[in-house]
C-alpha cells in the first residue's frame, strides 16, 4: 500500500491535485495555494455541503419508501368521496386530498416505493450489463471491441426517452416492462464509461505482470480490472439515479407504469393535473416531489462524481 492510499484518499491521480509547491494552474483557472504539508500527502477531499444536504434528502426518500406502512397517516387507496380536494392542512390531511378524497401525503409516501424502485433497479441492471459489456469490449480483441461499441452507438441515434417509450409501449404497460425499457436505454452510456475505464487500466504495469504470470481472462477481468474500474462505474451509476427516477415517473405519467389506483408519483402527476384550476396547490404536489427527488439525487451524485473525478458523456 502506498503512502497516498494510507492517507485515505483515492483521488491522488486526479489532475487537480498538483504536487505541493507546484504552481501549475489547475484546469479551473485558479492557481493552487502553496501547501505546507509534507510531500506525498494529499488533501483529503470531502463532499461539499450541498451534496451532503442532498444526500440527507435522498436518504429520507429511501427511508420514507421503506417505512411507508409505519409513517403514512392514511391508507393510500382509502377514498372518501365526501372529502374531495381538501386544501393543505385540513382535517388531518397535511397535503390535502385528491379527486377521490385520498390523502395526498400518504399517496406520496407509498408512491415512493414504486417510483424509487423503478428508478433504482434499471440503474442496477444496466450497471451490471454495462460493466460486463465494457469488460468484454475493453479486454477483447479489436474486432470484439468494434462490434460491441458500434452496436451500442446505434442507441445514441435515438433520444433515450423516446426509445424507452417505444419499448415500454410495445411490451405493454406495467412496472416490470418500464424497468426493462429503462434498463435498455441506460446500458449504452454505462458500457461506454466502463470500456474507457478498462482501456485506461489495460495499459497499467500490473496488468502486464498479471498476464506474464499466466492469469486467465476471467482472473484478469475480475481480480485486476474490475476492482480498479468499479469506483468510477459505481459513481457514474449513482449520478444516473436521478435521471432514471425522472424517466421512470415520466413513463408512469404517460400511462406506461403501474396501473391505477396504485400510488406512483408519475401517475399521480397525471391524475392530479386536471385540478390545475380548482386545486392548484394539490395538483402540483407530486410534480414538486419528483423535482425535489431529482435535484437531490443529482446534486448528491454530482458531488460523488467531483470527489472521484469521473467523467460521463454529457447526458
Amino acid at each position, binding site marked *: 500500500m502506498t503512502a497516498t492510499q494510507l492517507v485515505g484518499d483515492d483521488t491522488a491521480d486526479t489532475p487537480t491535485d498538483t504536487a505541493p509547491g507546484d504552481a501549475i494552474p489547475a484546469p479551473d483557472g485558479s492557481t493552487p495555494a502553496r501547501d505546507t504539508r509534507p510531500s506525498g500527502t494529499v488533501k483529503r477531499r470531502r463532499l461539499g455541503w450541498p451534496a451532503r444536504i442532498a444526500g440527507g434528502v435522498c436518504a429520507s426518500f429511501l427511508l420514507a419508501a421503506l417505512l411507508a406502512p409505519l409513517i403514512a397517516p392514511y391508507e393510500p387507496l382509502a377514498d372518501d368521496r365526501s372529502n374531495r380536494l381538501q386544501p393543505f392542512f385540513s382535517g388531518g390531511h397535511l397535503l390535502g386530498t385528491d379527486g377521490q378524497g385520498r390523502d395526498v401525503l400518504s399517496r406520496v409516501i407509498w408512491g415512493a416505493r414504486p417510483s424509487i424502485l423503478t428508478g433504482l433497479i434499471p440503474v442496477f441492471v444496466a450497471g451490471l450489463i454495462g460493466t460486463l459489456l465494457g469488460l468484454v469490449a475493453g479486454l477483447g480483441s479489436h474486432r470484439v471491441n468494434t462490434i460491441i461499441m458500434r452496436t451500442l*452507438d446505434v442507441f445514441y*441515434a435515438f433520444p433515450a*426517452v423516446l426509445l424507452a417509450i417505444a419499448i415500454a409501449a*410495445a411490451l405493454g404497460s406495467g412496472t416490470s416492462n418500464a424497468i426493462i425499457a429503462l434498463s435498455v436505454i441506460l446500458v449504452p452510456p454505462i458500457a461506454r464509461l466502463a470500456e474507457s475505464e478498462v482501456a485506461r487500466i489495460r495499459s497499467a504495469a500490473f496488468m502486464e505482470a498479471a498476464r506474464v504470470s499466466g492469469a486467465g481472462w476471467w482472473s484478469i477481468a475480475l481480480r485486476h480490472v474490475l476492482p480498479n474500474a468499479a469506483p468510477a462505474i459505481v459513481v457514474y451509476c449513482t449520478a444516473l439515479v436521478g435521471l432514471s427516477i425522472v424517466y421512470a415517473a415520466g413513463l408512469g405519467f404517460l400511462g406506461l407504469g403501474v396501473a391505477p389506483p396504485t400510488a406512483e408519483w408519475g401517475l399521480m402527476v397525471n391524475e392530479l393535473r386536471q385540478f390545475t384550476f380548482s386545486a392548484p396547490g394539490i395538483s402540483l404536489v407530486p410534480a414538486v416531489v419528483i423535482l425535489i427527488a*431529482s435535484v437531490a439525487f443529482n446534486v448528491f451524485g454530482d458531488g460523488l462524481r467531483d470527489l472521484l473525478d469521473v467523467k460521463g458523456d454529457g447526458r
Partner: protein
Amino acid sequence: MIRFLLRRLGLAIPTLLGVSLVIFVTIRIVPGDPVASLLGPTGSPEARAELTTKLGLDKPIPVQYVTWLGRVAQGDLGRSIAKQTDALAYVWEAFRNTITLSLFAAVVAIVGGIALGVIAATRRGKVASAISSGLSLFAVSAPQYSVGLIFIVYLAAGRGWFPTGGMRNTTGADAGTTLDLIRHLWLPGISAALVPLGIIARMVRSSMLDALAADFVEALRARGLPEWKIRWHAFHNTLPSVLTIAGLQVGYLLGGVIFVEVVFSWPGLGLVVFQSISQRDLPVIQAGVLVSALAFVVINLIVDTLHGLLDPRIRR
C-alpha cells in the same frame, strides 16, 4: 469539405440501418400472436395459415426484416389502428408542430445556456457565479412535466399572463397570427429548454475556464488587451465543443418535448404518441420514434458540417 461531407453521409447509413433494426425489434417484441389478435378466437386453421402467409410471418426473421425495411424505405409504416389512416402521414403532420416548438426551445436553451455558462466562468468566486452554477444544476435536474405544471399554475391559470395550452387561439383579435403563436410558445418552450440549457451552461462554463487558463490568454493580457476582448477570444475557442454538445442536446429535446406537449396539449408528435399509448396504436408509436430518430440523425449531420466549417482540423 465536400469529401468530409460525403464521408459523414456515408457514416449515417449504418446508423440508419441500426435504427431501423431497433425499431423492427420493438415491433417483434410485442407480446401475443398478431395473427390471433387480428382474426379473433374463432379463426379457422386455414384462415390462420393464409393470414400468416399474407403477413409474411412464415418467413425467417431476416427476410421479414428486409421486407419490412423495403416498405419503410417507401414511407409505408403501416396504418394507424385508431385513426385508420397512414401512420407516417399522420405522425408527420404532428411532427411539424414539434419542430416549431423544438426550434424555439433550442434557441432558448442555446442563448440561455451560453449566457449562464459565461457568467459562471467569468465571475469566479462571486455570488453571480454561484447562482448561475446552481441554476444550471437545477435546470439539468428539472423534469419537463414538473416544470410545465408549475408554469401553468403560477404563470398561466388564474393569472392569464400566458395561455395554459394549445398552439393557437381560435377566437380573439390576434387568433392565428405569429404573435399569438409566440405567446403560446413561451411556457412549453422554456419547459422543454431547461434540461439542455443546464447541460449547455455547464459545458460552456468548463470549456470557457479551460480556455481562460490557456497560454494565449496570458499573452493577450501581456499585450494589454481589455478584459472583455480577452474573454471574447476565450469564448471563441469554446465554440466548437459547445456546438457539438448543443447539437446533441437539441436532439435530446425531441425526447423531452413529449412530456411538454402532453402537459401543454401542444398538437405535436408527443401528444400523438401519448394518445396512441392508451389506444395501443403501435404503428403510430413506431412511426413517431422513427421520425424522431431520423430528425436526430439529420441534426447530428448538420452539427458535424457546422463543426467542420468552424474547425478545419477535424475535416481530415
